[in-house]
């Protein structure tokens, strides 16, 4: 057997160089090919479905738009339109919205957990971590490239879903601030996806095994999601007013739904809080537009009448116009979490003995 050799190359500069992005891009593509093909493929399939179904929903909605939302005021034709819409279009859309809620964690977990854990589990890290490009740089490049791809895909998909769901905001009396709708729109949806990906990668590196990391990612994501629901009402974007006439009974299609009312209270003469019975009477008593929901996500109109002189009804609420500030706050802390977890992952790569 002959062995071909080439003359030895002179020593090249061994000082640390910036990460060769093009090379790492090829490496990430080749190693994560399955994920990078499967995720867009699945999203594309769902997108096709959303487009087809969404066009139908928008078409049905266009016919409804001129009908009043109040059932008592609808003509029989309008009532019929609403009935079909609510029995065929809405259940499917509702199911979709629940699944969309799971999408970030599924994408993030399936992409993130195996990223590093798979190499540790099947021993190929013994090859990858003894190459010239130090292991931390490989990890950083993989996290950045894959994370960026997922953010872009999730962002596009989120926009599509917002378009798809838009007719149902009015018919189901929701708005962009409602739980579930807020998380699947704007920049929060891709932020959740990135956070889930970072959680998956970190847990994968921590636990060193893919399946346990996947399960743990689901659990941690669920905990974060629940925490987020609880914490959102404390974002510093709420306003307090006493003008309850700004809440209509039923909004028109151009301003769907009600703003998010966080709390309601009544003050009496001199600004002191009213007694419980009086407050009850004012807030819940019979009168036009009775009934206030306290700390509900969707919100309901507050009492519009029967406020005796000297008493004022106050509401602490978040107007729809504060949607984007809220999005930025939420995406902001999700981004900080994601970056912190990725940094933690790189730290583990560097310091974890094989």
């Amino acid at each position, binding site marked *: 057997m002959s062995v071909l050799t080439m003359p030895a190359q002179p020593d090249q500069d061994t000082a640390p160089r910036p990460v060769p992005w093009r090379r790492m891009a090829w490496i990430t593509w080749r190693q994560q090919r399955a994920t990078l093909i499967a995720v867009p493929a699945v999203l594309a399939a769902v997108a096709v479905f959303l487009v087809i179904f969404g066009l139908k929903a928008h078409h049905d909605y266009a016919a409804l738009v001129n009908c009043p939302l109040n059932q008592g005021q609808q003509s029989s034709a309008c009532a019929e339109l609403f009935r079909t819409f609510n029995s065929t279009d809405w259940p499917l859309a509702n199911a979709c919205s629940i699944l969309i809620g799971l999408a970030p964690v599924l994408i993030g977990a399936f992409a993130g957990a195996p990223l590093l854990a798979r190499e540790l589990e099947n021993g190929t890290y013994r090859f990858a971590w*003894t190459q010239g490009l130090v292991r931390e740089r490989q990890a950083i490049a993989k996290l950045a490239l894959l994370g960026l791809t997922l953010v872009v895909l999730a962002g596009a998909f989120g926009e599509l879903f917002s378009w798809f769901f838009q007719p149902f905001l009015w018919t189901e009396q929701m708005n962009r601030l409602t739980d579930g709708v807020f998380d699947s729109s704007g920049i929060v949806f891709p932020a959740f996806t990135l956070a889930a990906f970072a959680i998956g990668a970190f847990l994968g590196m921590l636990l060193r095994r893919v399946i346990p990391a996947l399960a743990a990612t689901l659990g941690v994501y669920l905990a974060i999601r629940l925490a987020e629901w609880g914490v959102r009402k404390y974002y510093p974007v709420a306003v307090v007013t006493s003008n309850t006439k700004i809440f209509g009974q039923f909004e028109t299609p151009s301003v769907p739904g009600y703003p998010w009312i966080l709390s309601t209270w009544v003050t009496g003469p001199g600004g002191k809080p009213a007694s419980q019975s009086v407050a009850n009477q004012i807030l819940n008593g019979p009168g036009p537009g009775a009934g206030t929901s306290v700390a509900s996500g969707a919100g309901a109109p507050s009492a519009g009448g029967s406020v005796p002189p000297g008493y004022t009804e106050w509401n602490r609420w978040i107007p729809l116009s504060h949607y984007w500030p809220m999005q930025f706050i939420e995406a902001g802390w999700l981004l900080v979490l994601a970056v912190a977890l990725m940094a933690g992952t790189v730290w583990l790569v560097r310091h974890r003995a094989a």
Partner: protein
Amino acid sequence: MNVIETCELGKRYGKSWALRDCTLTLPAGHLAALVGPNGAGKSTLMNMAAGLTAPTSGTVTGLGGHPAGSPAALNGVAFVAQDAPVYRNLSAGDMLHLTRNLNQRFDTAFARARLADLGIPLNKKAGKLSGGQQSQLALTLALARRPRLLILDEPLAALDPLARQDFLAAVMTAMADDGVSVLLSSHQVAELERVADFLIVLSRAQLQVASEVDDLLAGHRLLTGPTGEADEYAGRLTVVQTRRGDAQTHLLARTGETAAPAPPGWESHQVSLEEVVMAYLRSPGVSEPAPLTRLQRPQPTEATR
């Protein structure tokens, strides 16, 4: 330049030490054989030298003082781990491309030519290659990186006798043409005897021998003589292993470079590498002290024998 230097290197997993108090120096330009029974610490030592595992105690540096695992060391050290891990889902061609992208130096032409020579198709998934082919693929990738030091953890295990010869020939050629130093672990001492010129013996997590083969063989002799005189004679020597029979006793002793002539009635034979290795493996607690050779750094408080 020393390609590997360790100073009281140790690694503990949980409560047990996989390697302890290992101080050795491997000069450049040698093919070092690392031998020892299973569980002796061979893989642990190699993992630490390659920068894969961090030591629990002590230090290990490579290629003239760079800490193991640092970018300079990673650049110049090519490591093939036990059972030659390759990405099962990537083809051999993909593995070439991958290794080229992960290193500053990679000789693609050489790698392709060698794989073609070995009959390993570039488009076949690495997981579908035979064990021997995977080993050859891993070695090709390592050689193509043009390293200064090649560390091979039991590379011959999956190879048939013919493939083993070819593998060792390839390693020797790389050494001759490119000046690569090699650290290679194996169970087959006899096979390595023909190619290795440096020997490291580990047993029960301790270093037993770390010496050039020539010096080792020159410094040990097999002494055969009457059993009655054996104890008295052995007291005057550093005996590594004793084999006692009814009439004759064989003593494998460390005699140093200048050996005193054997007393009458005793015969003195040269030893083979395998005999020396087996003797040290069977006699734990007797370890070869770091010999003073011209290539080693002198220890400050070394007492000469």
